């Protein structure tokens, strides 16, 4: 009897499945922790899940994968996040 194998392709979860998407960035979000009121708006709206929510509800930015869309800066009501052009001379 002929044996039929079911051939499927399975992908497995991995961080950076499309590579280090932080390289796509033109503008870099810069967080001023002193201004942050921990409202978590940037965290919930970031399309890339690159706003890291800490235990005390403070936030950090994962620059390896952040695509620089600027949504976090735009939704922050106290302007704790600003955008800066990548590679700008300090």
């Amino acid at each position: 009897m002929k044996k039929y194998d079911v051939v499927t392709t399975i992908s497995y979860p991995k961080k950076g499945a499309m590579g280090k998407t932080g390289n796509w960035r033109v503008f870099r979000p810069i967080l001023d922790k002193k201004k942050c009121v921990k409202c978590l708006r940037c965290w919930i709206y970031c399309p890339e899940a690159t706003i890291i929510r800490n235990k005390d509800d403070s936030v950090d930015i994962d620059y390896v994968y952040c695509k620089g869309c600027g949504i976090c800066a735009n939704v922050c009501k106290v302007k704790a996040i600003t955008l800066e052009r990548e590679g700008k001379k300090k």
Partner: protein
Amino acid sequence: MAIKDLPVEECYIPGCAACPGCPATMALRVVYKALGRNTVKIIPACCTAVIESLHPHTSFDIPTMNIAFEAAAAGASGVEAGFRMQGKTDITVVAWAGDGGTYDIGIQALSGALERNTNFIYICYNNEIYSNTGIQRSGATPYGAWTTTTVTGKTEFRKEMGEIIQAHHIPYAAQTCIAYPEDLFKKLQKAKSIHGPKYVEIMAPCPPGWRFPMEKTVEMGTMAVETGAWALYEVENDKVTFNGRSKLILEGKIERKPIEDWIKYQGRFRHLFKPKKDIKRIKAIEDHIDQMWERYRKCYQ
């Protein structure tokens, strides 16, 4: 419910193929938070099938099955039946498709699954175009909008999917929007708790498709609701409840904002403003929305 009450756990992993500012991944994160890990997702051809990223890797930490463009609800029906036969009744089966895959090519499979009383959640993220193949019109594209197949602006009005779904009299149907994550979360949790077919549609403004800057995705969602172009509501066994701002608009407690406040920031409507303001077509859009709200008031109060 506040934003801080939403779970920290992520089933979406950073580094996917979506455009910066993508409404689909924004919504997916919240969807995963609401449904939890004991979920299986069926995805037809659409942006999300690309967003998943390239074999042998994926950005979704939840079992996902890809299927042909027209077959999301049929695939979900099969997966649900398979689990049921194995006695696995605690798994949430969810189909996740674009508006093209829902309003147009997948509508037959969807209608069939609803009619068969399939125990699953169907989610349509509605970016009002076929975005994956480069911005063609769909049944959800609004009147007047530019797409690559409606270069002078669409000449037809969008169909009212909510009313088509309601004609199936399913236990739960809802409309929500990426700009309101708490609303999205609550509606999906409710959908998860109900047995039978559930339909949830998410308004999902797409930066490249609508031609607006990528940092404005949330604002475009808020304005869709504030101008009344999109309504937040839920239908439980034929009982309709409007939510948030849409409730205030329905009850006449606030005026909906003029549609111009929303469309003038979208490049897909630029030809309605330049070189000369096209008052006739803008008014046609406005009138169409008024008619929609008239219907809402008549049928749903």
